[in-house]
């Protein structure tokens, strides 16, 4: 049995902030060209009333719009965002009940089970993995995984607090807001859906990136040792894992014939390095990476899925093609998802 993406939804807030404006607002100006290093020209910024719940709901509704299911058909709703703000501009960060309860109530899925998962930028991948296993075990038939990320708050903390070029809050300058949602069910054939999805956490590096409220200013902050997170050894955890996966399965990266690869949208240079390190390890030229980060920044949990959404929308990814999606998240979490595209339209 296989699971598939039955429908995909997205939401991009209307307001745009250019990277140059964001950099200009920094209390201490960087000594390097952050825009040139990341390749991010602008990001979307949610309005104060567009909290995490709002972003998630917009994405969920977009997803339901083109699904063959109604909300009441859903067996489960899993919310996967790091940010869990409700009450609009009040910015209430909710611990309980989970955001998934508010989402399922709002979309009209009263009989659906619900819970949140939290796994840094790999949250939506984690939700997809859980649904994949629950569908395969027969526990559920169909479910919604959704993420509404209102995370630009950390950039507003960063512009005030970054002190020098080694400051751990530089990663916060790259983020953008968004929502993404996927309805999953059982695939109808081997020509569509998830071939395999494996995730792992290499926990020795679990404290390289910490998100918590700032003690200098009112607001959330994210502290990342970027140099360590994106070291070659760290990046090559993924291809090591994927190659080992193939060893007992009579295949290899070349035979898998991926048409595209989607990496975490942290920056153009970083994505290029991810692909280069991966190609070096596999001794095979990986397919070209798809990116949208120049216009969205790093949207955290939604990143890969928004890239897929845009690529389908633009006609770049077509029926019959095969995509490799590689998460890279605090934890550190990595892995690989092989997805065949059949009737997934946006």
């Amino acid at each position, binding site marked *: 049995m296989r699971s598939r993406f039955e429908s995909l939804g997205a939401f991009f807030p209307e307001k745009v902030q250019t990277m140059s404006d964001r950099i200009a607002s920094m209390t201490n100006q960087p000594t390097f060209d952050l825009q040139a290093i990341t390749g991010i020209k602008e990001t979307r910024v949610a309005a104060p009333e567009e909290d995490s719940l709002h972003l998630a709901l917009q994405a969920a509704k977009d997803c339901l719009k083109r699904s063959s299911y109604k909300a009441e058909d859903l067996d489960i709703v899993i919310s996967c965002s790091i940010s869990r703000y*409700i009450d609009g501009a009040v910015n209430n960060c909710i611990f309980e009940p989970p955001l998934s309860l508010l989402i399922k109530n709002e979309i009209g899925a009263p009989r659906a089970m619900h819970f949140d998962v939290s*796994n840094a930028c790999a949250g939506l991948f984690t939700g997809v993995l*859980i649904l994949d296993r629950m569908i395969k075990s027969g526990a559920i038939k169909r479910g919604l995984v959704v993420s509404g990320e209102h995370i630009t708050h950390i950039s507003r903390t960063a512009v005030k607090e970054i002190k020098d070029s080694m400051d751990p809050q530089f990663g916060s300058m790259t983020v953008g807001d968004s929502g993404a949602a996927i309805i999953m069910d059982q695939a109808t054939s081997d020509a569509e859906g998830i071939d395999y999805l494996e995730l792992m956490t290499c926990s020795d590096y679990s404290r390289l990136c910490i998100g918590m409220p700032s003690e200098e200013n009112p607001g959330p902050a994210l502290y990342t040792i970027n140099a360590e997170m994106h070291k070659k050894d760290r990046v090559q*955890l993924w291809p090591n894992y994927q190659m080992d996966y193939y060893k007992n399965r009579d295949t290899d990266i070349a035979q898998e014939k991926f048409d595209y690869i989607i990496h975490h949208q942290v920056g153009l240079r970083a994505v290029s390095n991810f692909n280069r390190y991966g190609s070096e390890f596999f001794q095979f030229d990986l397919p070209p990476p798809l990116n949208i980060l120049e216009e969205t920044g790093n949207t955290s949990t939604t990143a890969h899925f928004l890239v897929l959404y845009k690529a389908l929308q633009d006609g770049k990814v077509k029926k019959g093609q095969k995509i490799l999606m590689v998460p890279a998240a605090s*934890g550190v979490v990595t892995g690989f998802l092989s997805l065949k595209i059949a009737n997934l339209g946006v």
Partner: protein
Amino acid sequence: MGAIIIGTGISTDSKIRSALSHASIAGKQAIEKAGIDPTEVDVVINTGIYREHNMVEPAMAAIIQKDLGINLDYVKANPRRAAFSFDLMNGGIGALDALNVADSMLQSDSSKYVLIVSADIHPSTLPQKDFPFAELGSAILLKKGNDPKKGLIANRFATKKHKFCGRMGSLKTNEMGKTGRSRVDIVEAPDYVEAITQFTVDTAKSFMEEHKLSGQDLHLIPSQISASYVAAMQDALKVTNTLDLFKIYKGDTHTSTFGLGLHSLLKGGLAKAGDKILLAGGGSGLAAACVLYVS
């Protein structure tokens, strides 16, 4: 269904002022009880809600995974074993969802051992009189079962709308100033205890009817929202063997309720082979859940 519990653990020392430490201590106990090496654990699921400094990233489960010595670095390990961890959050009943998820992971043969941990602590890490939860941790370790009449047998999840969702725990970021790492705001509807008691009772009664369960033949682990909640669950479901963890631990054991309860029954020898254990939870939402486990 059919996953079986092979180890449990608890951490109740009030001198420990870290949810991560409580969860790790409990997890270590569960692994030792099961007689496996920590590196054999495939998945760590943390269901704790309130944690030191209100950290939201990474998953607390990743830090707990490190403390337990599980998959520190995939490439450097020998043999290599790709363990994975994440947080699962559903108020005080998250462990019941985690049992469901763990069962699917085990039954789909994608994992061999799944560890569920939990702990709650006031984010300030200091004892706070108005923090309504007992600050402790628990752990449950599962593997795939081979007997369809043993282990996890059935479950049910239900929700009902209510003012403030009954109880809401949050961080009001517009009011927090520079104290965001050390505060949490918990509000309850005036009738929360009454409402969640009734909802859990109704859900559990319906579940017991569906599965032809009699209170006389059960061990009951209810949520521990209050002393009156526990008593009401015992009376309404007519279960003599009802665990009162609220009394033992002097408060609502919240996310650790079901781990503590299973530890008491299974390790403590109160439940014998073949005994039926009903885990009946209620919490913020309103949300109620039942899980039937046969020892």
